[in-house]
């Protein structure tokens, strides 16, 4: 990898993921975003978790991350080509099923996806666009793993 190719100098970048539902314990959600301001070579990672079960508090974290972390996230976006998908055939969020949102702005490209929370792999299989939804699901799973690992190491919390 020639590092230079995946990180255009100080290119603004934004990724936001939200997953939430209204359940037995009220409104519960996690949300994180990763952003790079124009002209900055570092980024910011923010994380919020509101779970009313067991831990009756809102966890809110914000930390500055190196451009190398941002580079890894961009690599993951490019590898799976999630930005080429469309959410038009995905199960729409209902009033009961919860919602997942993914927003990415990278260079000139921008996507905003919205779908009903995916609970099991059969939710993907049953949808009208299983290939696209699978790309979304695995990308989200992998980027969550990165964010949770970082938050876990930095703050010694179990972020979920």
């Amino acid at each position, binding site marked *: 990898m020639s590092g230079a190719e995946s990180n255009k100098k100080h290119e603004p970048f934004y990724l936001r993921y939200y997953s939430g539902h209204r359940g037995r314990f009220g409104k519960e959600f996690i949300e994180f975003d990763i952003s790079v301001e124009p002209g900055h070579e570092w980024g910011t990672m923010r994380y919020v978790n509101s779970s009313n079960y067991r831990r009756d508090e809102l966890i809110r974290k914000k*930390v500055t991350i190196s451009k190398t972390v941002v580079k890894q996230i961009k690599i993951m976006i490019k590898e799976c080509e999630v930005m080429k998908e469309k959410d038009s055939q995905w199960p729409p969020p209902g009033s009961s099923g919860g919602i997942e949102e993914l927003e990415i702005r990278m260079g000139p490209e921008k996507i905003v996806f919205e779908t009903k929370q995916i609970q099991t792999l059969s939710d993907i299989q049953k949808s009208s666009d299983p290939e696209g939804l699978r790309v979304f699901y695995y990308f989200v799973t992998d980027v969550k793993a990165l964010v949770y690992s970082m938050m876990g190491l930095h703050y010694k919390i179990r972020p979920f």
Partner: protein
Amino acid sequence: MEVDQEECSSSVLNPARSIEGYVIIALNVHPEASEDDIIDFFDEFGKVKNVQLNMDRQTGYAKGYALVEYEKLREAETAVDEADNSELLGKRLVVDFAFLEGNEDNIQSSNRERSRSPGGSKRW
């Protein structure tokens, strides 16, 4: 080959301390690398306190990055200086600090926060 040494070091901000030490990130990790491979490699620069080698959930292979924590800044600095641009299992690593000193704010809690934004329209 002096590949983007400058490109890959976050020279503007200082590394930030995590609760138990300093976390570095390695990119371009071989898909078949194991956690033991990572520990063996990075133990050269100091005592590795924590490792996270996340898997690609679809393939089961390593996703391509590793997070490594040292207790001391000096150990982490040595790892960043010496491991960056070096080879592990035939792949050239990019190694850097994961966290930098910026304007961090960690607001723990509270009910106050939650009741203020019941609709979730402004979550931050």
